[in-house]
């Protein structure tokens, strides 16, 4: 069995999605447990793969028994094993937590919701594990299309936000496809490892340069790097809360993983970081993006929109860190993929809890929430502290590596942007905490304060949320081990 983990990882949710789609109308009650089983199987396989990678080193799985580059191979190494475990855990936790919210938000279509949810997860896991550039595109599209559908059935203007997402997403994916086409044209292969071995001979070719720029631009679009972020705020804020807490941790982070994969294991790192001016430009763009997104976040009036902009700033962190091109910064970027997924999940689950219990997440409705929903606020506070970067939460440690990397590279612009964003995050989250801490002030003309009812979420929602919040601290404390055992091995030795 363990030899087939890579395929099991993807096929389990896929098959479950198919079965759920067939029984969706007749047996809706069976859908959530089935989905949970499938995702547990995925998580199990991901964990198994991580253990195997740690024990034996990277391995690959040849689908159809065709050796690459003829067939498609799944390559499992430290990098994707780590990200996979994180993503599978995020998907499973979100599934368990949001069950009630799904039942109320998607009445009558829970079955289809879970089918799309699983397809989304299958696509994401596939992207993370595949070793074939074109296969990645197909999986990207399955993720995107299920994502469009899930977003499209949300709040009032969800369809518009989703269509916008369709357009931006399609342009991004098409650019990636075009980049892959260029690579195929010049190398004659689609297998990532194969391309990696052929490319060093072709550094001078304009085709490689064009392929690189086009594919990366496509990915920037999909990951919502600052000037190309247009789709994200609306899509995330209009989506229903269970969808939001699924898509927000997975989509952008997966794209950043793809960027890391392309930059380190498809294009030789030497080409990625030194051969073009591109890397330097991107770091500055990321720094500008962090600052602008943080400023935009300040002007939002609802929690979820604010968080959407915070997320865009976080994308800037990872992009900036990666393109600095030194070991510490790349460590920070990879670490932040995991940490940010956990933080985003945590924070959006808390928002989901608000929207589920209070039917709204505008700042005004959050008054007195420390009293009304104390545990949810604890979760939100933990996630907020992590996003600000307060030790010992995990956000601090990835920021540690990112800033350290920027210092190593002497890139003061990014250092300043990161510090600035931490400060803005502090302001943003403390504004929320403050609102939630103070109850509506007593009206001098009224004798009694308006009594606020206790409105905590049910325990089935709360338990996984608290688990995630604890996970943020746990991840932070485990940073040293993750870095020495996994991330160090994930970055090519050539990068210092």
């Amino acid at each position, binding site marked *: 069995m363990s030899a087939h983990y890579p395929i099991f990882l993807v096929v389990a949710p896929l098959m479950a999605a198919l079965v759920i789609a067939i029984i969706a109308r007749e047996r809706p009650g069976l859908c959530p447990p089935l989905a949970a089983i499938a995702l547990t199987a995925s998580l199990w396989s991901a964990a198994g793969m991580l253990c195997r990678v740690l024990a034996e080193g990277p391995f690959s799985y040849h689908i159809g028994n065709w050796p690459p580059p003829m067939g498609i191979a799944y390559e499992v190494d430290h990098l994707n094993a780590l990200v996979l475990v994180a993503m599978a855990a995020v998907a499973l936790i979100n599934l368990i937590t949001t069950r009630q919210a799904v039942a109320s938000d998607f009445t009558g279509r829970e079955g289809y919701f879970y089918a799309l949810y699983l397809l989304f997860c299958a696509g994401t896991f596939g992207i993370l594990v595949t070793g074939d550039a*074109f296969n990645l*595109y*197909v999986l990207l*599209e399955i993720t995107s*299309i299920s994502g*469009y*559908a899930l977003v*499209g059935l949300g709040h*009032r*203007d969800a*369809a*518009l936000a*989703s*269509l916008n997402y*369709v*357009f931006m997403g*399609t*342009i991004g994916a*098409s650019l990636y*496809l*075009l980049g892959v*086409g260029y690579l*195929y*044209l010049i190398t004659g292969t*689609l297998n990532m490892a194969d391309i990696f071995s052929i490319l060093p001979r072709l550094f001078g070719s304009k085709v490689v340069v064009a392929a690189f720029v086009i594919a990366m631009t496509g990915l920037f679009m999909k990951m919502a790097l600052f000037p190309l972020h247009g789709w994200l705020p609306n899509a995330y804020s209009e989506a229903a809360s269970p969808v939001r807490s699924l898509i927000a941790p997975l989509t952008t982070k997966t794209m950043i993983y793809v960027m890391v994969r392309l930059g380190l294991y498809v294009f030789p790192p030497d080409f990625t970081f030194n051969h073009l001016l591109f890397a330097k430009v991107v770091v500055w763009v990321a720094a500008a993006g962090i600052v602008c997104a943080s400023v935009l976040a300040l002007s939002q009036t609802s929690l979820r929109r604010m968080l959407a902009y915070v997320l865009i700033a976080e994308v800037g962190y990872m992009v900036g860190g990666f393109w600095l091109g030194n070991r510490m910064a790349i460590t920070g970027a990879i670490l932040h993929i995991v940490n940010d997924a956990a933080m985003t999940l945590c924070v959006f689950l808390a928002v989901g809890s608000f929207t589920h219990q209070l039917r709204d997440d505008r700042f005004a409705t959050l008054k007195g929430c420390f009293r009304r929903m104390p545990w949810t606020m604890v979760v939100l506070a933990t996630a907020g502290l992590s996003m600000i970067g307060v030790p010992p939460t995990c956000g601090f440690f990835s920021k540690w590596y990112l800033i350290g990397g920027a210092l190593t590279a002497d890139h003061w612009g990014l250092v300043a942007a990161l510090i600035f964003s931490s400060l803005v995050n502090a302001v943003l989250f403390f504004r929320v905490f403050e609102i939630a801490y103070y109850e509506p002030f007593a009206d001098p003309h009224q004798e009694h304060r308006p009594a606020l009812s206790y409105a905590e979420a049910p325990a089935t929602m709360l338990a996984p949320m608290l688990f995630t919040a604890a996970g943020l601290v746990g991840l932070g404390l485990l940073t040293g081990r993750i870095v020495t055992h996994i991330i160090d091995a994930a970055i090519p030795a050539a990068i210092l």
Partner: protein
Amino acid sequence: MTTAGYINLIIAKYNYWIYIVLMCIGLWAMIAKRNLIKKIIGMNILQTAIILFYVSIATKKGATLPILGHHDAGHFVDYATVINPLPHVLMLTAIVVSVATLGVALALAMKIYNRYDTLEEDEIHARVRES
């Protein structure tokens, strides 16, 4: 490069130039058009342009279709005489993806029309602002 060289460059790769033009048309339509259906058409043009590019990679001058006869079995096939099949395979997938995207995009456009009663982006934004 001489003038003749340029002309040669243009003629030798005219398929590629056309795909660039189509791609730019598609992209421009997606950015600049306000009607959602037009945008969706632009999206499809963008996707077909990429397919054209891939198919162009595959061609070999003077080669035959990538379908062998049974008489080919057992003896060596000179690969220069058969068109490269791999991009075709990829593009079959890409076409499917494009029609899938089209379906979802049209469904969303219909939802949007049901809600705002128009398909023009500026009118929709005006309505969003009103509410």
